[in-house]
């Protein structure tokens, strides 16, 4: 209970480690866009935010998207704006990139590439993990 009171007490000094895990390709489902919007909202709460891209989630960061033909919003450029919201911890899983023939050069933002073991450790040290 006292923990809860602390959390609600203006939030001062309470910084938790939040990880947002993105595992879906863009456009085919709404998960990628919704996940990105939640991350942007989370920036308002001054938490320690990490964004992780694994499996088909790595496709969210591909350069050179042109969504005119399918008439949906191209939100990929928004990943570049994350820095402005102090969300700078972007991680991609090496194994997911390799399985899709992708390298860091194919991505629209600077990321840290981690192997599965390193990703697992990072995930284990989080207070909150939210998956999209």
């Amino acid at each position: 209970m006292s923990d809860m009171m602390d959390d609600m007490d203006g939030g001062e000094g309470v910084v938790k480690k939040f990880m947002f895990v993105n595992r879906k390709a863009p456009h085919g489902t709404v998960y990628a866009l919704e996940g990105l919007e939640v991350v942007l909202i989370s920036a308002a709460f001054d938490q320690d935010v990490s964004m992780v891209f694994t499996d088909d989630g790595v496709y969210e960061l591909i350069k050179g998207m042109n969504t005119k033909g399918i008439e949906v919003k191209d939100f990929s450029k928004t990943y570049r704006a994350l820095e402005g919201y102090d969300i700078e911890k972007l991680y991609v899983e090496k194994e997911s990139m390799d399985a899709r023939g992708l390298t860091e050069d194919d991505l629209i933002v600077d990321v840290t590439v981690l192997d599965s073991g390193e990703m697992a450790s990072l995930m284990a040290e989080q207070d909150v993990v939210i998956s999209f």
Partner: protein
Amino acid sequence: MLHIVNKSATERNSLESCLRMATKGSAVLLIEDAVYAATQGSAAAAKVQAAMADVQIYALGPDLDARGMAARVLDGVKVVDYGGFVDLVTEHNSCQSWL
């Protein structure tokens, strides 16, 4: 028959099932997230290439463009636009959408 697949091959097994069932001379059209399977370096690329011995693989261009994948399409895959999609549907007696 025209087979249509719309899910990523690294998330669902619909492309795998489709390629197992597609008979010689049939066509397979990849749309939406399924287009990743027709790109160089993807985990499904080898299966798609092997399938091209018996079936013609098509990929929807606007979906490739939207995903930044237009420059990575495998050799032998024919890219079609929405008009081409309609042509494929009319040219074949039946369609199977692998949901």
